[in-house]
């Protein structure tokens, strides 16, 4: 029985088919597993291991390297606040401190209602609107404590759901088709192009 529910298994198989080597689909598949469970569950890891043809230890070892993958459950909304150089100069540390009070949890912790997990992030590449805040990797662009509080209330009240899906859902736009460039034809084309190129090069040398 597949752990991936509904169309997720099909989406996962479609992803694997995009790569010349199955294991390349590792990161996209881990994102999918996280989309379903909100974090990387044991069952999710097992399913990914099976899909890419490697061991669960390999999958877990790979996932642990990357900041975006959570091996423990997190809140429905992961709030990331940057304190790197540009945000530091704009009060990122102070905003992070404020967020711990607003959400009632330490950095790395989850609010008591289980809704929000707070993270201190490295640079999120939106430094002209600093300090940068992301919720589930969507830029919310709240740079003051008041704006931050208002945003949190909106998220809590479900007013931002179209913009900010639950944690784990990363890319909502589905790829419209599989690979289209015909493989055999390409190999033949390459050979022809190579021959033509060599012929032209030889001509130029004369």
């Amino acid at each position, binding site marked *: 029985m597949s752990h991936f529910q509904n169309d997720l298994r099909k989406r996962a198989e479609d992803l694997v088919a995009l790569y010349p*080597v199955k294991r390349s689909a590792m990161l996209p598949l881990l994102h999918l597993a996280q989309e379903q469970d909100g974090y990387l569950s044991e069952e999710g890891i097992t399913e990914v291991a099976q899909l890419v043809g490697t061991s669960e230890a390999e999958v877990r070892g790979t996932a642990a390297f990357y900041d975006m993958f959570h091996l423990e459950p997190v809140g429905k909304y992961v709030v990331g606040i940057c304190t790197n150089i540009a945000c*530091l100069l704009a009060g990122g540390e102070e905003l992070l401190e404020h967020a711990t009070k607003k959400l009632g949890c330490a950095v790395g912790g989850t609010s008591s209602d289980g809704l929000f997990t707070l993270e201190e992030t490295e640079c999120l590449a939106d430094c*002209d609107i600093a300090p940068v805040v992301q919720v589930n990797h969507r830029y919310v662009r709240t740079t003051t404590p008041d704006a931050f509080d208002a945003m949190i209330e909106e998220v809590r009240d479900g007013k931002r759901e179209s913009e900010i899906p639950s944690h784990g859902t990363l890319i909502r736009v589905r790829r419209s088709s599989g690979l289209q460039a015909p493989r055999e034809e390409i190999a033949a084309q390459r050979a022809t192009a190579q021959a033509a190129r060599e012929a032209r090069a030889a001509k130029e040398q004369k």
Partner: protein
Amino acid sequence: MATFSAPKIVSSRKDFDDSHTLSRYLETGGYVALKKALGMFPEKVAAEVDAASLLGRGGAGFPAGRKWSMLRRSPISYLVVNGDESEPATFKDHYLVERDPHQLIEGVVIAAYALQVSQAFIFLRGEFALGLERVQQAVNDAYAHGALGSKIFGSDFSLDIVVHPGAGAYICGEETALIEALEGKRGFPRIKPPFFPAVTGLYGEPTVVNNVETMSNLPWIVNNGGAAFAALGEGRSTGTRLFALAGRVKNPGVYEVEMVKNTFRDLIYDPQFGGGLIDDKKIKAFIPGGVSAPWFGPDLLDLPLGQDEVAEKGSMLGSGSVVVLDEDSCVVRATWRITKFFSRESCGQCTPCREGSGWIERAMYRIEHGGGRLEDLDLLLDLCDNISPGLLWPPQQTTICVLGPSIPSSVNSAISMFRNEFIAHIEHGGCPHD
């Protein structure tokens, strides 16, 4: 005085709210260059890029044309686009993927045609959720428009592009680490030699890895010719470049500026760019090219924005991000935060980087937060010297990749430029700014 005569090459659609859509792209000259390129011999397209002397816009500044020529005789290969923009205070690729994804895709198809590659991957950092959705939508629309897929625009050329999300790791911006991540592994940079993925890249096959901005320049170069691009700028720094300006300035943002013709002063102070410092404070220092670059003082404000010009003064234009510190900014805190970043993002393969970054971060922390000792200053420089012997520029390397030698840049700069501030912290028993 700032000059504005150069055309906008990669940010021409900046004023449109719908710049990411196919319809806007087509209305503003989109996919014309691709049709033109498909009517040329592939090596002629590559020759135009060579003639443009387009330097890679990722950080290392390696000429794109030369990267390609290493590959041209190889029969099977992949094109990988590096959109893992993670260098602190760099946000120009963010602009390009979110606001002009079709320009990127057109550039990728042109490059793939020049290289005769039939599969390309666009690797975007996972934190770009909107960017990932926009690029995926643009890829879908490009397939439907005939600009991607089988027999592009009726030619014999076919190409697939796969959008690949990263998952949060600075090191994946290093091209061999990016390839490892694309192979579904931890983002560990590969041991060199071979130095270039052109020799051994994705799945061990010849691969070209180019930055998002580098690719985004290609439609303009094909439309206008490499010579027109090379006519802009000066010396080796041709064309225009996106600069991401951040820190204590009135108007932080992404600005497209002609190379060399403008200076750091223009970028920071001109009303059309940075507009000067917040509250008109005095500038204390600036970082010219991402936090891996050594810092400059106000005496170098009149330095032109050119790759070799900045290199001559002992730093780099790097990823094109300029960070401004004002007279009240705490350089110790800034340096501590930068070293904390490197300590967190070191992949852990090489001892000097893994251990050195953490040790430096701890010493910096105690100077900033109380408990620093005067001998810590020599200790810090000694640790830096162990990571990058001699503290030279360009740096010596004791590690697999350049993350290691990037660590000493800010530490060495800050201590040599602002030693008194470090001493004040130590004597005060913490940060006097608090």
